[in-house]
């Protein structure tokens, strides 16, 4: 049962071959068994989960031909701990929110639970305030990669990735500001999708860099991701940058043949800087796409080397503003001892935030400060425009863009923790997509040195259904995405 697709689970639930309570219990048992070693979940509450499962079973029992239950009703899911969920501790991986019980639901949570009928298995570990690429910045300790427990699962959605890779959950949510869905998906052999900016509501999703943050699904296949995105996407008046567009069925094009598809290969993604075995694995996937009827064309993203520098101005600038709300007054951590009000702010923030979060707040404060704004912040925004224009140009000669997701496979715990710049460069292929606001995904395409390799697909604005189609067709002729860590049976 733990290897069944979401569609198969849906059919089994609808036919009452299994109940949501049974299915939820099955995963709760696996969490109890494997989570102590992997640390993928920071909060589980079996009673709450089982209550939701009973409600889902009641919905299924009450469904009829004229009024069917939604296709995801009763399916368990792991929620990244960046999404506020009413009555659940919502920590964002930080000491600052270690005791924060959310008084409200994020729109994503409301849509997935109240509307779609999904059952929450708990909240997953993550880099503190989503700032990290290895899950080592979490206040709750690092997550271990189920493929090799001495290695990182990637980040910031590392808990979600490890949960699904170890089959402690059939699927999970993630968020992606500079690669935080795609990179952990790559490092843990999952399929993950970051939608076009504005497609999934940010209401109740704790803000890191508001012009870049976007929620999305992490699962084992493109088909699963399509079903999940159907439950997550949609206009939300509570998110001022939510896009008011007609609802889509993201699974509608899954089976379309790829004949005539033009795949753009950016020469900047196929040069130096990528591990040779990772590159060979990606090349093999390209050959497979040619067999599926696609053609390839070289494209160029000449400013892509500037995406990491521009990102590390823009994201910290937005973060320094967003995180100013954590002042120890209305919610969150307050230092036990302090003098005046200013001292209370300074001590609460010094003790409540971890080292990486503080670093980014300081960078952001500096680049926004008087005298430096033009040289850093405005220059970064101009470069952001150049990067976005590169994609506009590239999509004139291709339908989707393909390359590696990450320049290496999962690295060892502690390997990059002491050097922020080395850590930042692990997102070298993913960040440009966020700056441009485009949809991107990662899917398994093989192994290098026994560790999973992710293939990145980048689409034009609102091309989620097409990306899922391109990924799904590959998954029809490959079985990389079905492989799982042998130790965790």
């Amino acid at each position, binding site marked *: 049962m733990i290897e069944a697709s979401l569609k198969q689970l849906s059919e089994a639930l609808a036919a009452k071959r299994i109940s949501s309570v049974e299915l939820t219990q099955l995963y709760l048992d696996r969490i109890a068994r494997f989570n102590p070693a992997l640390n993928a979940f920071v909060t589980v509450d079996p009673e709450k989960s089982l209550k939701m499962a009973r409600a889902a079973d009641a919905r299924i029992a009450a469904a009829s031909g004229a009024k069917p239950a939604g296709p995801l009703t009763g399916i368990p899911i792991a929620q990244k701990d960046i999404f506020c969920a009413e009555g659940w501790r919502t920590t964002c991986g930080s000491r600052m929110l270690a005791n924060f019980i959310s008084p409200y639901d994020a729109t994503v949570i409301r849509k997935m639970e109240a509307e779609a009928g999904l059952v929450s298995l708990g909240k997953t570990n993550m880099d503190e305030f989503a700032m990290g690429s290895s899950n080592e910045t979490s206040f709750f300790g690092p997550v271990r990669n189920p493929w090799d427990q001495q290695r990182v699962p990637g980040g910031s959605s590392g808990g979600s990735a490890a949960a699904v890779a170890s089959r402690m959950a059939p699927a999970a949510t993630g968020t992606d500001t500079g690669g935080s869905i795609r990179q952990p998906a790559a490092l843990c052999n999952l399929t993950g999708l970051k939608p076009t900016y504005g497609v999934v509501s940010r209401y109740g999703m704790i803000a890191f860099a508001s012009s870049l943050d976007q929620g999305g699904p992490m699962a084992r296949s493109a088909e699963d991701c399509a079903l999940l995105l159907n439950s997550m996407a949609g206009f939300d008046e509570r998110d001022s940058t939510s*896009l008011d567009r007609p609802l889509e069925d993201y699974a509608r094009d899954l089976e379309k043949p790829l004949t005539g598809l033009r795949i753009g290969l950016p020469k900047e993604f196929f040069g130096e800087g990528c591990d040779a075995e990772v590159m060979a694995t990606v090349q093999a996937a390209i050959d497979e796409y040619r067999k599926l009827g696609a053609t390839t064309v070289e494209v160029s993203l000449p400013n892509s080397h500037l995406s990491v520098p521009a990102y590390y101005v823009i994201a910290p600038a937005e973060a320094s503003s967003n995180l100013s709300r954590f002042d120890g007054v*209305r919610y969150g951590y307050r230092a036990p001892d302090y003098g005046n009000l200013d001292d209370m702010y300074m001590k609460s923030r010094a003790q409540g935030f971890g080292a990486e979060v503080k670093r980014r707040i300081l960078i952001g404060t500096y680049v926004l400060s008087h005298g430096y704004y033009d040289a850093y912040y405005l220059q970064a*925004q101009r470069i952001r425009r150049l990067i976005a224009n590169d994609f506009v140009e590239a999509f004139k000669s291709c339908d989707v863009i393909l390359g590696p997701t990450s320049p290496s496979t999962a690295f060892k715990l502690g390997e990059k923790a002491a050097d922020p710049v080395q850590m930042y460069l692990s997102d070298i292929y993913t960040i440009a997509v966020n700056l441009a606001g485009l949809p991107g995904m990662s899917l398994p395409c093989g192994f290098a040195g026994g560790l999973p390799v992710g293939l990145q697909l980048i689409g034009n604005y609102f091309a989620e259904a097409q990306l899922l189609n391109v990924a799904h067709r590959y998954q029809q002729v490959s079985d990389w995405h079905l492989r799982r860590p042998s130790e965790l049976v």
Partner: protein
Amino acid sequence: MSLTLEQVQRIAHLARIEISESEAVTTQGHLNGIFELIEQMQAVDTRGVEPMAHAQDVSQRLRDDVVSETDRRAAYQAVAPEIEAGLYLVPRVIE
């Protein structure tokens, strides 16, 4: 460009984050490494390029000025560090 120790301490103060002398030294090293990376931007001629603040060129939506939320003060104050009589308590600001 290289940040001095005093600049690091000044930024930390602006961000309202208490920082010890030894933390400031470590932070100075990290920040200067990061700014070395960021400095690559300065070589690019961006004259005439419109700054891009946002992924979608959309303007802010307006809504009617009507009450749309219910009163949930008690629920929101339940997560506050210190409250009294519906007010958030902080150290005395005005003597």
